């Protein structure tokens, strides 16, 4: 039974019938290959795009406003929902920014566990990227294969923190839990199989004619364009700029592990695809090293700073003062010093930065989330003109944008 409502065809002052043979195509906001809620207004000359106008904000949930009304620890689960494909990396960026603000140092075991989570999340994100991009271009098999591997990683994270997607597995000042017993063995088992799996994907895609047609020399981003648009991560490295924050401004234990930063100077979709595959191998390399680091670290998981961080659970349950401190920190929240901080981290998508302006209260005065995908969406304005309609999907695919992050 259909009831009528007020909605009428609505085209935002765009005339679809034009005399100059130009066609206006509305793409989205709900399109299966728009990776969420991207809306594109494409002006077409036959099949060629002459003007592209991305419209975002369909997933704007007001996270920055929420942050101004929440104590710092309360905001942690909200960061999960930003880049929901690799949520621990968002948790980590926020935790690191607050730690820098209050000047905390994290115990070594917590650092090792954070590194594990970050790299597992990177693998998850890259596998997801591969799955969806391949699905968009028509390679259903790769989608099924990549999701199979991704599920194993999700099992690992689930063993650690109990959640599949929205982990909230990192706290300000450390991590809440130690690793479960079988974690390292399972991870090693997965990593041993990973090269075979990556080879499977590459065998399916590398020389595939359809894949090559949609990838090679499509969506070329020049170095100047990438820098000017504030690109980061793989979008930047595919255009010939060697810049990985893990290498250049190392945080956690990234200065202690060996890994390479794959770079390409082609700047097209295929270069980005190759970099994603190479980064997965590098992540596996890092993970092997981090597994060895875990042995022999002391069992401390949270930094000791009673003014900001609650004591361990055992102390809270047994010692009076720790319980009082915990009560104050939970009900009123920690009060970081007055000041501001901008901390960039290398999330799987690119440079994820948190700008926090604290006025000494329990709520941040201003929190700005610098999400890489925001500018990776913006670059479509300049990138799409000149391309053909079938290329749009593959270009959106390789920019690897997530709308929880773009709109926040």
């Amino acid at each position: 039974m259909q009831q009528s409502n007020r909605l009428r065809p609505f085209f935002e002052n765009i005339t679809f019938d034009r005399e100059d043979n130009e066609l206006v195509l509305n793409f989205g906001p709900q399109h299966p290959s728009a990776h969420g809620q991207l809306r594109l207004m494409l002006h077409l000359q036959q099949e060629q795009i002459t003007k592209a106008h991305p419209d975002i904000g369909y997933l704007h949930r007001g996270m920055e406003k929420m942050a101004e009304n929440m104590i710092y620890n309360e905001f942690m689960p909200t960061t999960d929902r930003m880049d929901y494909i690799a949520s621990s990396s968002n948790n980590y960026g926020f935790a690191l920014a607050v730690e820098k603000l209050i000047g905390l140092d994290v115990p070594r075991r917590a650092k090792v566990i954070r590194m594990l989570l970050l790299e597992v999340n990177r693998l998850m994100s890259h596998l997801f990227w591969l799955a969806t991009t391949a699905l968009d271009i028509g390679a259903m098999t790769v989608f099924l294969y990549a999701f199979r591997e991704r599920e194993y990683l999700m099992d690992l994270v689930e063993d650690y923190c109990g959640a599949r997607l929205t982990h909230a597995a990192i706290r300000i000042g450390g991590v809440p839990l130690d690793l479960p017993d079988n974690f390292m063995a399972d991870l090693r088992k997965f990593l041993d199989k990973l090269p075979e799996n990556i080879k499977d994907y590459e065998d399916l895609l590398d020389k595939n004619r359809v894949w090559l047609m949609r990838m090679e020399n499509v969506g070329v981003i020049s170095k100047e364009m990438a820098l000017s648009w504030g690109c980061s991560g793989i979008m930047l490295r595919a255009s010939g700029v060697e810049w990985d924050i893990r290498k250049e401004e190392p945080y956690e234990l990234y200065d202690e592990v060996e890994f390479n930063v794959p770079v390409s100077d082609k700047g097209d979709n295929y270069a980005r695809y190759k970099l994603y595959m190479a980064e997965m191998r590098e992540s596996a390399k890092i993970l092997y090293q981090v597994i060895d680091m875990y042995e022999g670290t002391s069992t401390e998981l949270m930094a000791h700073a009673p003014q900001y961080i609650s004591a361990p659970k055992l102390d809270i349950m047994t010692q009076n003062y720790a319980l009082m401190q915990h009560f104050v920190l939970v009900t009123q929240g920690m009060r970081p010093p007055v000041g501001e901080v901008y901390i960039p981290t290398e999330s799987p998508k690119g440079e994820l930065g948190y700008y926090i302006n604290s006025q000494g209260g329990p709520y941040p005065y201003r929190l700005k989330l610098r999400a890489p995908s925001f500018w990776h969406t913006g670059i479509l304005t300049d990138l799409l003109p000149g391309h053909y309609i079938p290329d749009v999907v593959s270009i959106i695919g390789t920019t690897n944008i997530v709308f929880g992050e773009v709109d926040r």
Partner: protein
Amino acid sequence: MRAYTPKDDVQKKSYYTDRFWVAPQVAKSEVSDDAVFAADLAAIKAKFDVLDAYIQVEQMVVVINANDNYSVLEFLKNECEYTQLSEMSAIDWLATEGKFEIFYQMLSMAKRKRVRIKCKIDEKEAIQSVEKLFRSADWSEREMYDMFGVVVNNHPFMKRILMPEDWEGFPLRKTYPLQGDEFAAWYEVDKIFGKEAREIIGPENRDPARIDRYDTQRFSRLGHEVPFGTDISQGEPDTPLVYQEKEGVFMVEKFDAEKSVVISDRQR
């Protein structure tokens, strides 16, 4: 009598602060401590007014006049190798000073340094666009306008970006409540069904802690499902967890747990 709540900042406030609480400060150090920053600052100082400069958490902060913003950023880009504008936005200080603070977060890949340029403008004042220097500012400035209402001059497309075109109010201002004003509360109803439908649909439930265990319209009951709108105040019917009707389903075979293979090793 109701307690007075200031209208110029309606964000959440701490309900208790110690009378003698003095907030500590994040350490600031002199720019001369770092040779690279000192050279950059000297170069900027030679051409422009610098109101304040210091290093905080390994990054240099330079406060400049608002009308210099384009030329300072141009200078930094061309002369000092700060090739990327990684972030820019505004901070609302209208309640205390009546000004917006605008910050530009710059990155130099050659020097591996980050600099934050800040300036302040009045509420009604506009700022010069830096979109010609950095294309990334195109969207950032639009977002700033959308969220704060800061108008940017010489911008090619000064329109809202995150909120709908017909939105009223600037959400990130301190005067804007977290849960929105009346316009926001009825936005989707007005747009889809019209204002006359407001009474039928009813106001939003904005209380996240509200739980009514007898309300079968708004609360889902996992494992105890009852049909929509059933009255269960007199006790609810016992609904065991079943995936199919007891007597079986027409032409659909029932799942047999004993015959199926259970995989215990997930990475088999």
